[in-house]
């Protein structure tokens, strides 16, 4: 009996030592991959940041309105944000490669999935950035045109245009990374339809006068208005 127990313990010890002997090099390799990955990610982060600073990336982002959006969301400057994204993407890639080396069955395929996910994430980010640019352009164009056309509440009108474009871009970006796709699409369709229907009803019921004024302004029965009669040249 005692001998059997001792044999079992010895076998367990041998198994444990075998496991350790098998796993330890993997752990060391994983640690090395993670450490090297961190160094590479850190170096890439600074390289990207330096290139962005040199190419006046922040200035460009300011012009297209991305900086203002980031500021509103309490996010760092565009060059810092992009370099951070690069850092985390590279480091997480190395991290998952390291974990893959460990050979845990539950974690198998994560690297492959991550490799599939990264391009989609990048496309989603591009969609978001383009959405912000388009939203800001549409907002500014609407605001200036509404002010010059004497449309009532120009900031409300232009703000609504910007919000719609941003929501559309956000929904497209979420769809791209396939995050809760069904919920996003359904919620977007319901919300967009509800907003449009609500606006149409509200404008039709409560804004008849405004609509008449706008139409009168755009298509005057007795042109021109006093402002237009006055000759500026």
């Amino acid at each position, binding site marked *: 009996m005692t001998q059997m127990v001792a044999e079992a313990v010895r076998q367990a010890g041998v198994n444990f030592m075998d496991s350790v002997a098998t796993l330890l090099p993997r752990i060391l390799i994983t640690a090395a991959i993670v450490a090297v990955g961190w160094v590479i990610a850190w170096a890439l982060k600074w390289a990207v940041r330096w290139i962005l600073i040199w190419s006046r990336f922040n200035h460009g982002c300011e012009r297209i309105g991305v900086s203002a959006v980031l500021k509103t969301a309490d996010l760092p400057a565009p060059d810092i944000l992009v370099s951070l994204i690069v850092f985390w993407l590279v480091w997480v890639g190395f991290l998952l490669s390291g974990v893959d080396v460990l050979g845990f069955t539950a974690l198998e395929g994560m690297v492959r999935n991550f490799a599939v996910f990264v391009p989609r994430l990048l496309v989603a980010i591009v969609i978001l950035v383009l959405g912000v640019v388009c939203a800001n352009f549409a907002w500014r164009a609407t605001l200036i045109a509404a002010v010059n056309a004497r449309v009532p509440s120009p900031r409300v009108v232009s703000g609504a245009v910007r919000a719609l474009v941003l929501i559309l871009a956000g929904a497209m970006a979420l769809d791209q990374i396939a995050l809760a796709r069904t919920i996003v699409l359904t919620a977007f369709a319901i919300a967009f339809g509800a907003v449009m229907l609500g606006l149409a009803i509200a404008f039709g019921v409560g804004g008849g006068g405004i609509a008449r004024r706008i139409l009168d302004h755009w298509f005057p029965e007795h042109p021109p208005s006093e402002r237009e009669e006055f000759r*500026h040249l």
Partner: protein
Amino acid sequence: MDESLLSDDLLRQLVATGHVDILVGVPTLNNASTVVDVVRAAQAGIGKYFPRARALIFNADTGSDDGTPTLVRDATTDDTGTVSASKPLRTTHRITTPYHGLPGKSSAMRMIFAVADLLSADAVVALDPNVTSVTPDWIPALVSPVLDGRADLVAPRYPRAVADAPLVTQLVRPLVRAAYGWTLYEPLMGEFGCSRQFATHCLDVSTWGTAMTPDGVDLWLATEALAKGFRPAQAAVGPRLVGPSRKRPALPDVFQQVLDAVCACLELHDGYWLMRGQADAVPCFGTMGGAVDIGPRPDVAGMAVAFARDVAALHPVLATILSGPTLAGVTLASAAPSRLRYDDDLWAATVFEFVLAYHRAVMTREHVTRTLLPLYLGRTAAFLLEHASSGPATVDAALESLCLAFERAKPSAAARWKKV
């Protein structure tokens, strides 16, 4: 010269005409209701003041569908009853021709200059076919300084009432004067006279016909003369009254075209104007008449209220164009519509900062120009409020003071322009 500008048929007519001393160019596009009087005035002016001159009235029509070319061809001075005693001793030729290239005044002016070059005209006069106040006296006023060798470009100088053409008096005139360093009163000269040398120079300039000139050819001609060392002059003519026929675009479009033209010229000539100092006087020939109060007065009180509303609405856009102190000044100026004040220095700073924003392209250039429009209307309202009961002398002094404010603001703007 680009000979493709002139068709074979036109060349035949021009060869038959031969050398002319004076070429009167009339670029037209649907000006049937006003062009006859302009042609008659030109013909009468030649007959009365240059009876021995060989002259040609040349109409370049860019696609009228209201019979304008026929009216020009058939217009005679005989039925006016006012010029029968002043017939020219030589035939005043008249040619009207359609222009099939790019539509617009720019193309028509280029054709007129090409004809002047071909016929070796000593002086060229361009007349706006839509101006109803042209008299025979305008011809010698615009031609004589050129024929006498005293000038290469003669711009008109109209007597302006306080509310007349504020886009010129409040914006274009002071800006062009401060930038180019010449006291040119009408940079957007609708009519002008020029020498053949200047016309030939313009034909050789490669920028003609590019995107910058179609809507701002008059301004480009004026600034090109200043920047390239041609001798400018001004001729006192009567008030400028525009006929009702022409379908003008809406104010935002006109404003954008004018500001686009000004900024395009500034970019084209920055090698010249950045070096210029205080403005030199452009000689003015003739005696200025009294201003005529033209057209309806604007609703100044309404403009002041709209200014306050527009500045508040546009604040986030203005913040990307204007510096902090200027934006604060504009915001303060718009705060009390009933006591609206938009002083000269603030307006000069505003305009130069918009020009710099346009040059740096901080946003779409169309957005920059259209954002200035509400501020321009506010400044115009403030000026009209302040000078509602001022006499002509006071108004002239105020406009001179505005020009000086622009001249004071120029060095700082020029320094920032160079940094871009």
